[in-house]
């Protein structure tokens, strides 16, 4: 068993180890393949192998369990059984032995007692006979017989077991006592005395006396009294009388006799009685004892213990059995044991005879177990009693059942129970193992499934990622051809030879291309955000100005829609914030664009306010909004305000369009989702705008949602989390106008805009009056300026009853000492369709001395009106929409003028007629504040106001596009009159200060404004003017082809180009320039001749711009730029450097800008893009 187990373990171990060693080799062979694939395969292989190993382990555990339990069962059963059987067997042996011994001992007893009785009878008989030796008479003879009878009786009665005692005398006289043991019937048998004489005492022939008569008389078994009459019986009838024949040699004899009166064999002994001389036998005494009692004992024993016993003589005659079967055949002969009627005894005897025959073992003792006799098993034991004359053999046959029956049964039952129990345990154990391992294998399966799912998910994510990345990477490839298409279309439009029809078609194509480009940009932006490639800038920018620019831009579109666009920024908005200005602008551009699309009439309001925990309460303008939002975002605010310098800016875009169904408020921000699908047909669009907005807003840490509003339209509310500049002192551009005695009359057409402006003005302590139409305006004017003449006043009061509100205002105006009136007149208030406007103008002109007029112009007002206004001296003009910053500028201008006038009055005729608004001062508030010296200079610039104004007008009309971005259409640039190139347009003057900056759109972004700007610049090309006339450019490019192409391009635009071959030369060229900066100027003609001559670098004139290739030999563009910037430190100069690179990724752009470049152009050089970029950069300085 143990070896078996060891073998099994060996097998299992070898199996496990071979598994272990096999796996890694399989892995190693796959090493060259794709790692992921291999991992997956490995995982699945592992899973499969583990699946098999689980199966094997399960089997092994089951087998081991079975073996263990089987072993346990077997051993238990075995030991229980063996020891029981052994002890039982020994006990049984003892029992058998004992059982056999007892009848044999009884037999022995019987024999002994018979012998004793016989001997004592003989001795007594001798004595009696000797004492009656001389039997003379009959009487004496009778006396002797009487004595004999008494003696014999005495012995007979003392031994109850005796069957009979007989005395046969020599003369044939018989005296016998007989007892029937069954009924205890005792009788005395004697022969007739008369026939025997003394004479015949010595007669030998007793047997010959046939005439003898025997009597039998019954006796009382106890007393021996005669109880019945003597009956005559035939001799030898009832008992056997031992005669002389039985003692032929005169010694005692033994034999087993069979009586015909009893059914059991008798043991009879005979002894002769010698006379006194010991010479002749006088009589023979015979004693018979029945073996009945032995049989009785055997029966009793067998009854108690079961089985069978018998005693045989040596020859095999049955002497006694434990059964009731007769022992005699025909009552005369003894039976052989083999012929017994009892089956068990017969079979036993037969078996013994068959086994041993006559050759019994020396001791004649046999102990055999488990002999099959018939259908049962028996124990057979024999015992030999070796008597001299009567050897006896005792046999006991006990069925095994009697002794071992219980034990066998128990053993069998135990075995059955054990086997069934172990089977149960095995079954249960197997089931348990199955369940357990099933769990394990199930887990394995699940794990495998999980692995495959993970794999699938990873693949899906990867493919999605690839898609996004592909789109993001495609951006350049997609934009370049689009830019080319648009540029070429521009060229085509500028062609003079086109017919009108062709021109219309081409214009249409251009519009479509622009739309396509916008769509592309949207998709690319979205994919950029999704692919995580969008990196937000973190630069300082003027949020207010960006938004104003945006509103200016969209106001053009709004006028066509007759929609009023209003910018309403609260005063607590920070001036400068850090963030990605382009993206912020894009957010609002998309939102406003959306609003414009869906708003046919009414207004669009862009509200903005700042959320500071402490400034929540001091903003009454949006009180109810604030309540809700403070509730909603209280937690958020706390969180954000903890981080330093972060602030939350809230914005709302409110329109009066068709509105959005409330159930779609969430879904409008999804990709390609529009609130109403039918609007696509009406308004176009892809539904990407809001999605981009949300992505961007979320990226800036904000949220956007649609909010319920009263009235029609949509209200989008969003907040952005922007950081304030670290070192910026909180400078709100907030002027306090309350002490200047200003009265503003707002005669504006749009209700909402006027309301907003007047609210703001009143907050700042300016008294405002409002009029929405011409009549109202005239009435208020008359009221204001003729109030002091009561007649006028009364007359008008009758016709136009004033509102109470106005009256109170008039009262407060009258309290002012020396009020300054500012009248903002919307040009739309005039009747422009006919010529009435001129008269209206003249009417207003009458009040010119008493009030300052600010004209709010539209973009499409024709020049005649403007000219007329200028002719009349109305120089304060503002483009719509009128918002806070513009208002501040206007008011500041007015206050300044007023102060100057006051001064002049005081001094009496000062030369400085300063109508000029100090724009540098205004600009300082909104620009970087870097040009302090410029500002200082501006104070003495105001030399000849009229002349200056003339210039302003000219530049104004020539640069049409500036209208879009300008603040106030007044003096935009202050020029230094001692500049030698005064007559050139402002672009050619490197020192000219262009106040109206172009939007700070980065060149890489094709935003709406960029489009517009490009369109404008191309329209300038139509006018035949060379856009870059006079700009001097240093081109650093190593590839000769590109160098040549770029040179020609730039020269075509009118620029002067100096080309150098690498970064080092560029740096040298610029250093030379710095050296000669002090004043020496070469002639322009000479410059033109310098193309790529590096030798003349020293003579190079100063440059307005450097175009720098990034990848160049010797010193690359980045290095060169760093050099240049380093050399500029301390000089106050900043030469714009535009990168020229073949890399189109945003990281390159960041790198370019990081080293100090100003803009970024990609190869191949796009004509238009280069032009616009250069223009924007050169003008900025």
């Amino acid at each position: 068993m143990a070896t078996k187990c060891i073998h099994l373990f060996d097998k299992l171990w070898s199996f496990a180890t071979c598994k272990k060693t096999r796996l890694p080799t399989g892995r190693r062979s796959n090493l060259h393949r794709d790692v992921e694939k291999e991992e997956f395969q490995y995982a699945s292989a592992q899973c499969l192998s583990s699946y098999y190993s689980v199966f094997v382990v399960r089997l092994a555990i089951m087998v081991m369990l079975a073996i263990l339990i089987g072993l346990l069962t077997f051993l238990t059963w075995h030991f229980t059984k063996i020891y029981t059987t052994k002890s039982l067997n020994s006990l049984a042996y003892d029992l058998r032995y004992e059982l056999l011994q007892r009848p044999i001992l009884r037999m022995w007893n019987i024999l002994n007692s018979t012998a004793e009785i016989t001997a004592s009878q003989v001795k007594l008989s001798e004595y009696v006979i000797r004492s009656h030796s001389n039997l003379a008479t009959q009487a004496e003879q009778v006396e002797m017989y009487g004595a004999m009878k008494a003696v014999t009786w005495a012995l007979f009665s003392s031994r109850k077991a005796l069957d009979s005692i007989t005395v046969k005398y020599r003369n044939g006289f018989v005296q016998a006592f007989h007892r029937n043991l069954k009924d205890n019937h005792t009788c005395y048998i004697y022969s007739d005395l008369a026939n025997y004489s003394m004479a015949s005492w010595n007669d030998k022939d007793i047997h010959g006396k046939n005439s003898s008569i025997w009597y039998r008389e019954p006796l009382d078994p106890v007393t021996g009294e005669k109880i019945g009459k003597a009956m005559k019986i035939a001799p030898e009838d009832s008992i056997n009388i031992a005669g002389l024949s039985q003692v032929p040699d005169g010694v005692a004899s033994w034999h087993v006799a069979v009586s015909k009166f009893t059914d059991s064999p008798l043991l009879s002994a005979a002894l002769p009685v010698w006379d006194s001389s010991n010479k002749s036998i006088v009589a023979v005494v015979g004693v018979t004892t029945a073996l009945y009692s032995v049989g009785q004992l055997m029966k009793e024993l067998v009854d108690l213990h079961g089985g069978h016993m018998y005693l045989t003589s040596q020859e095999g005659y049955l002497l006694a059995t434990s059964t009731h079967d007769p022992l005699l055949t025909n009552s005369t002969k003894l039976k052989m044991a083999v012929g017994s009627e009892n089956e068990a005894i017969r079979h036993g005897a037969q078996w013994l005879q068959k086994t041993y025959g006559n050759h019994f073992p020396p001791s004649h003792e046999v102990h055999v177990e488990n002999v099959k006799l018939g259908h049962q098993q028996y124990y057979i034991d024999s015992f030999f009693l070796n008597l001299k004359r009567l050897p006896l053999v005792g046999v006991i046959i006990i069925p095994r059942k009697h002794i071992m029956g219980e034990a066998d049964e128990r053993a069998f039952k135990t075995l059955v129970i054990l086997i069934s129990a172990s089977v149960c345990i095995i079954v249960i154990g197997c089931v348990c193992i199955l369940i357990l391992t099933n769990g394990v294998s199930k887990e394995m399966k699940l794990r495998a499934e999980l692995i495959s799912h993970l794999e699938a998910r990873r693949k899906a994510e990867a493919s999605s990622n690839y898609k996004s990345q592909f789109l993001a990477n495609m951006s350049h490839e997609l934009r370049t051809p689009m830019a080319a298409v648009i540029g070429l279309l521009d060229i085509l439009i500028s062609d003079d030879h086109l017919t009108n029809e062709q021109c219309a078609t081409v214009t249409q194509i251009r519009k479509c291309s622009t739309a396509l480009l916008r769509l592309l940009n949207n998709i690319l932006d979205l994919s950029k955000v999704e692919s995580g490639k969008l990196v937000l800038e973190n630069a300082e920018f003027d949020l207010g100005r960006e938004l104003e620019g945006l509103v200016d831009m969209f106001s053009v579109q709004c006028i066509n829609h007759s929609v009023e666009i209003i910018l309403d920024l609260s005063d607590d908005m920070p001036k400068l914030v850090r963030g990605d200005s382009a993206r912020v602008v894009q957010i609002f551009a998309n939102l406003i664009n959306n609003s414009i699309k869906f708003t046919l009439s009414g207004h669009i309001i862009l509200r903005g306010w700042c959320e500071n925990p402490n400034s929540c309460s001091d903003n009454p303008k949006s009180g109810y909004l604030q309540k809700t939002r403070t509730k909603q975002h209280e937690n958020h605010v706390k969180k954000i305000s903890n981080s330093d310098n972060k602030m939350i800016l809230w914005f709302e875009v409110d329109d009066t369009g068709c509105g959005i169904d409330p159930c779609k408020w969430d879904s409008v921000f999804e990709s390609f989702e529009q609130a109403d699908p039918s609007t696509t047909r009406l308004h176009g669009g892809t539904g990407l705008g809001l999605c981009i907005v949300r992505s961007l807003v979320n990226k800036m840490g904000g949220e956007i949602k649609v909010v319920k509003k009263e009235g029609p339209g949509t209200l989008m509310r969003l907040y952005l989390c922007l950081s304030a500049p670290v070192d910026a002192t909180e400078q709100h551009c907030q002027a306090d106008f309350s002490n200047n005695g200003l009265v503003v009359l707002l005669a504006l057409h749009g209700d909402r805009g006027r309301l907003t402006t007047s609210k703001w003005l009143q907050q700042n302590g300016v008294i405002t009056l409002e009029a929405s139409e011409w009549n109202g305006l005239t009435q208020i004017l008359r009221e204001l300026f003729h109030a002091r003449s009561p007649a006028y006043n009364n007359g008008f009061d009758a016709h136009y009853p004033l509102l109470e509100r106005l009256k109170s205002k008039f009262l407060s105006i009258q309290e002012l000492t020396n009020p300054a009136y500012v009248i903002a007149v919307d040009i739309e208030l005039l009747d422009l369709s006919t010529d009435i406007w001129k008269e209206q103008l003249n009417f207003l002109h009458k009040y010119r001395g008493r009030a300052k007029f600010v004209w709010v112009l539209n973009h499409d007002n024709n020049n005649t009106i403007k000219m007329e206004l200028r002719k009349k001296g109305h120089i304060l003009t503002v483009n719509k929409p009128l918002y806070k910053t513009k208002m501040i500028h206007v008011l500041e201008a007015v206050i300044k003028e007023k102060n100057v006038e006051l001064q002049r009055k005081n001094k009496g005729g000062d030369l400085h007629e300063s109508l000029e608004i100090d724009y540098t001062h205004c600009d300082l508030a909104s620009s970087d504040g870097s040009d302090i010296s410029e500002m200082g200079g501006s104070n003495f610039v105001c030399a000849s106001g009229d002349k200056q104004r003339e210039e302003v007008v000219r530049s104004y009309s020539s640069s049409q596009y500036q209208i879009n971005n300008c603040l106030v259409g007044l003096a935009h640039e202050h020029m230094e009159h001692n500049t030698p190139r005064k007559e050139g347009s402002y672009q050619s003057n490197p020192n000219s200060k262009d106040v109206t900056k172009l939007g700070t759109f980065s060149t890489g972004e094709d935003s709406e404004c960029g489009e517009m700007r490009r369109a404008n610049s191309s329209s300038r090309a139509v006018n035949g003017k060379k856009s870059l006339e006079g700009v001097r450019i240093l081109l650093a490019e190593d590839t000769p082809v590109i160098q040549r192409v770029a040179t020609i391009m730039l020269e075509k635009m009118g620029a002067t180009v100096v080309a150098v071959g690498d970064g080092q030369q560029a740096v040298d060229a610029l250093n030379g320039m710095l050296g000669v900066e002090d004043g020496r100027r070469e002639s322009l003609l000479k410059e033109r001749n310098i193309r790529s001559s590096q030798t003349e670098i020293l003579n190079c004139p100063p440059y307005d711009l450097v175009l720098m290739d990034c990848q160049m030999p010797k010193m690359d563009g980045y290095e060169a730029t760093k050099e240049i910037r380093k050399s500029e430190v301390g000089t106050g100069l900043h030469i714009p450097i535009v990168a020229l690179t073949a890399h189109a990724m945003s990281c390159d752009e960041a790198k370019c800008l990081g080293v100090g470049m100003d803009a970024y152009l990609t190869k191949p050089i796009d004509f238009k893009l280069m032009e616009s970029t250069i223009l924007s950069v050169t003008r900025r300085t």
Partner: protein
Amino acid sequence: MDAGQMKRQWVDYIKSLFVEGFLDGQFLQLQQLQDENNPEFVVEVVSLFFEDSERLLKDLSFALEQKGVDFKKVDAHVHQLKGSSSSIGAQRVKNACIAFRNFCEEQNTDACLRCLQQVKQEYCLVKNKLETLIRLEQQIVAAGGSIPTMELSF
């Protein structure tokens, strides 16, 4: 062959160049840049391109034949070639250069050599085409015609 016929031939030829992808919009821009001030501008730039490219190709062949190939140098050369070819609008050369640069990054010498062959092939093709084109133009000019202005035919 009169000038008109030649002009038509020229137009067809340049169209085929665009259709087959030898040239792209950049070449049109080049043509646009040619005017009275620079009458030979296209020819000048193209011949510059030829010179430059042949030099670069020679350098490239040399660099790739070295024992330890300096991939940085190779990459710089290819980058230059790419820049000049894209500036002239030789689109197929440019595309071959892009593939070339990828292999440079992988430092795969065999693939680089294969790419070099391809670039050379593309270069020869475009050179032939451009030379034919310039010959045609010269013929047109010689015949007294003028080069047709831009036909936006792609």
